[in-house]
């Protein structure tokens, strides 16, 4: 017996060490790590490439103080070839993706109209948006413009980091009611809400304690089972019950009368749908006919063979391809904006062969290569797992004066796993 105890004691340090290691290992799983945003990459490529294309996105500031404003603005195109896997934008809401109300939305506009309400949008049309935000909780947040589409979900635009500095306690959200009262939404009405809850909790506790203070389960169960249940509710209990019933009704009625006197003017909650017209259609100065498109997987390159026709009066060149908020730039034509998130730009990601301008009236065959690891890092290469393997985006053509023509692009895309297959495909198509 003694030896067994000794052995058990000797084994204790090992067991304890092992236990600590196991517990620490388990805790490590839940140890908080830095949230790195980019949840948008979880959205399948077709949702990001064949629904809404955000472009010209601009963040007015990357650092603001609590209570300071910044804006997210730009344009988006509701693509003509909207994916049939999701519902069309018959009702949408211009939203902003931040991790909760760490910033408050002061205002939002679609084509200059107040976008406080939901609106249907038209396929193949462009809209200009602007969202005014104000700092509330200090921290760094990934801020995206976002379009919520009924029966489809949230469709996100490109995101960038915005830092809010200062003291969260200094945040205020003042508004003036139509009755002229100045209030702060940050803490409005909470005192009254808590007071009413406390009143009812006290009443409930009184009623519960009235019953809980006496023997409960077995003695009462036994009496009920032997047909003596009636004796368990006394005349005093009934009188107290009537008292609680009457008091409850009186408190409710009294509360209503007092509140009605305090707030004589109230209106129902408002929910408005409206129709905001799109931006005026631009004349089609450039058109594009797709021959075929492949994704060369080892080279992380999307290759297109297209015929471009210039209907305008000036020569044009391909400057940019934008899809899912990612920008592939033809370095000889376009430069990235200084404030655009660098992880969403491939500065030399667009090669055009030949890279000469398309002259007015000319139709030119172009071989376009879009090469970047972004296809993989942003998970756009996951197209192959989509229910419809189509690539979509916007080509930006520029004339010598810097005027821009936007051409919507949508095509089937084939994955190429070996180089020679690409070449064969290219040869077969004459590209």
């Amino acid at each position, binding site marked *: 017996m003694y030896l067994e105890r000794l052995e058990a004691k000797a084994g204790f340090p090992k067991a304890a060490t092992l236990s600590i290691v196991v517990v620490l290992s388990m805790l490590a799983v839940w140890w908080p790590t830095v949230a790195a945003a980019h949840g948008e990459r979880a959205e399948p490529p077709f949702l990001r490439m064949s629904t809404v294309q955000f472009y010209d996105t601009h963040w007015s500031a990357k650092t603001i103080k609590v209570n300071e404003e910044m804006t997210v603005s730009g344009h988006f195109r509701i693509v003509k070839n909207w994916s049939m896997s999701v519902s069309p934008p018959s009702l*949408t*809401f211009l*939203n*902003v993706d*931040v991790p909760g*109300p*760490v910033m408050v939305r*002061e205002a939002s506009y679609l084509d200059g109209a107040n976008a*406080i*309400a939901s609106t249907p949008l038209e396929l193949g049309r462009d809209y200009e948006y602007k969202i005014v935000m104000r700092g509330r*909780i200090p921290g760094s947040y990934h801020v995206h413009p976002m379009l*919520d589409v*009924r029966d489809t979900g*949230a469709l996100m635009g490109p995101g960038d980091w915005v830092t809010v500095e200062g003291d969260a306690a200094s945040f205020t959200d003042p*508004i*003036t009611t139509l*009755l002229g*009262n100045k209030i702060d*939404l940050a*803490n*409005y009405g*909470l005192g009254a*809400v808590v007071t*009413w*809850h406390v009143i*009812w*909790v006290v*009443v*409930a506790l009184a*009623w*519960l304690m009235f*019953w809980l203070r006496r*023997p409960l*389960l*077995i*003695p*009462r169960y*036994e*009496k*009920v*089972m032997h047909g*003596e249940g009636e004796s*368990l509710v006394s005349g005093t*209990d009934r009188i107290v*019950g*009537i008292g609680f019933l009457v008091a*409850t009704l009186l*408190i*409710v009625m009294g*509360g*209503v009368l*007092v*509140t009605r006197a*305090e707030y004589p*003017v*109230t*209106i129902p*909650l*408002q*929910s408005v749908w409206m129709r905001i017209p799109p931006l005026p259609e631009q004349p089609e100065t450039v058109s594009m006919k797709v021959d075929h498109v492949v994704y060369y997987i080892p080279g992380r390159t999307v290759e297109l063979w297209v015929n471009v026709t210039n209907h305008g009066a000036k020569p044009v060149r391909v400057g940019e391809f934008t899809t899912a908020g990612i920008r592939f730039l033809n370095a000889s034509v376009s430069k990235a904006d200084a404030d655009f998130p660098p992880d969403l730009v491939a500065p030399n990601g667009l090669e055009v062969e030949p890279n000469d301008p398309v002259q007015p009236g000319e139709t030119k065959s172009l071989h376009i290569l879009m090469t970047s690891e972004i296809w993989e890092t942003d998970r756009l290469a996951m197209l192959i797992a989509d229910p419809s393997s189509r690539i979509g985006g916007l080509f930006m053509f520029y004339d010598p004066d810097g005027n821009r023509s936007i051409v919507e692009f949508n095509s089937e895309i084939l994955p190429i796993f070996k180089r020679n297959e690409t070449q064969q495909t290219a040869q077969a198509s004459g590209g």
Partner: protein
Amino acid sequence: MAAGLQARSHGAFESTSDQQKAFRVLDLTVAVILIFLSMALFHIFAMLCIGDWDFWADWKDQRWWVAMTPTVLIAMPAAFQFIFWEKFRLPFAATLLTFCLVLAEWLNRVVNMHGWAYFPLDFVWPATLIPSGIILDTVLMLSGSYVITAMIGGMAWGALFYPTNWVMVARFDVPVNVHGFLMTIADTMGYHFVRTGTPEYLRLIDRGTLRSFGYDSVWLSIVLAMFASILVYFIGMTIGYLFTRSQFSWLKRV
């Protein structure tokens, strides 16, 4: 009679005092377990059935919130009420559940929605059903009849929900001009405090044909809630009845 009761349940104890102490320990143990169980069960039930209507100040409309909340939430108190009255003649189940629901909701709002998600508490406060629960319990105690409790208590349950909570809601329904749009304070809060997963069009605000029946949809909703609560009370009561048929053999053994 008392001697008979003692004789019936005396076996395992050395004295009546020991027996009473043991019974009291059992009472308290069950009470503590029951409170946490009720908080969890009723909270989950409420979140699944009415969810957003109770989460946000700008979802507490005059139609769906008023009609849905009491109608759906009477089911569980009815079941518990049947069990506690039928087996113990205790008329506090509805109050206990509504009390536990409020505790669980505040816990959720303070820790989760305010502490983790940063929503201000004045935007995510929960509604209360405690007055409705007290009325349901007192009607059952005074009448001793499930039918009368369903008819009178159920109607009162549905009728009291809106006035009980209107004293909190009213201040959030004051009109505001938001960039040229007429909105309530609650609507404005919903617009300011960004919810990425709850776009504006998801809110069921006064949608439906009820307005074509009358100008004030809230009264129609209250009447609907009153009658629907009666029906759902019977459903809940039936669940309680089925539970008592199968789950009380352990207590008989005790």
